[in-house]
């Protein structure tokens, strides 16, 4: 039953990814180490936030990747539904655990940062709330993957869920903005990060972001490889049984 087309692309992917992956790991980890060491040891304290400003090197990159991972899943799901590239569906699956971990890091470092700055671990601020909601969407997506036995059905259904979920996630983002405004007009605790960051903090932050991006890339590549190998093993065992 297996067509050549179904076979060839994953093989090509495996070959290419085995070449790219060491670079992604190497450069990613070095960027992360440079960014974090630089940020942690060699930057001054912020006049307003004191040493807590060092959390920025974890919080901003992870928050960025939390959203980008979902976006990548959305694109991969669309490619799967339209072009039926297996690698695409499996890449979406591989990205989800990384994305949920990033969301968790963003939430936890945010809470740890918020405690000394705002005097509370948690506020129902639009930004915080929408990240918590994003976390729930990741949970649903992962649960659906885990719940369905047939891998092709699972790929189809999770892709559709990802697309529908994206629409509702965006809706939730706007709804939450609206809802929190309803509680306290304009008075928001959220820091406007982009405007606050001075150059001293910005440069190590760039390294850290690059590190997180490449680490995400490497992890998704490795995860996708594992999924391909698992599917291949499954296909072989099914063929073995029918013989």
């Amino acid at each position: 039953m297996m067509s050549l087309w179904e076979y060839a692309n994953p093989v090509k992917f495996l070959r290419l990814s085995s070449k790219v992956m060491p670079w992604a790991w190497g450069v990613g980890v070095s960027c992360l180490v440079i960014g974090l060491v630089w940020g942690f040891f060699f930057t001054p304290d912020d006049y307003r936030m004191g040493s807590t400003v060092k959390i920025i090197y974890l919080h901003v990159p992870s928050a960025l990747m939390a959203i980008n991972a979902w976006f990548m899943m959305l694109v991969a799901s669309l490619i799967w539904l339209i072009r039926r590239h297996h690698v695409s569906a499996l890449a979406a699956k591989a990205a989800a655990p990384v994305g949920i971990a990033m969301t968790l890091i963003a939430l936890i470092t945010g809470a740890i940062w918020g405690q000394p700055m705002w005097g509370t671990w948690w506020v129902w601020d639009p930004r915080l709330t929408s990240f918590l909601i994003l976390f729930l969407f990741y949970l649903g997506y992962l649960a659906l993957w885990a719940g369905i036995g047939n891998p092709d059905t699972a790929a189809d259904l999770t892709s559709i869920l990802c697309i529908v979920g994206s629409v509702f996630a965006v809706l939730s983002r706007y709804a939450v903005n609206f809802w929190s405004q309803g509680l306290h007009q304009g008075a928001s605790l959220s820091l406007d990060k982009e405007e606050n960051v001075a150059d001293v903090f910005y440069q190590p932050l760039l390294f850290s972001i690059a590190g997180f991006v490449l680490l995400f890339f490497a992890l998704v590549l490795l995860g996708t490889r594992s999924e391909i190998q698992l599917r291949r093993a499954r296909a072989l065992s099914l063929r073995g049984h029918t013989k």
Partner: protein
Amino acid sequence: MMPELGKYALSVLSAYGATALILSALVIYVLRRSAVAKAALAAQESSEDG
């Protein structure tokens, strides 16, 4: 060598600690899944040959 973190030392360190914990859990999960996949594929391919 340790920079002066002042009164926020606990916050900063716990943020770094929590991140390290989650990231390493993630990396371990992905690596272990990769090992499982490799082993499963190897087992199938060897039974295919034999």
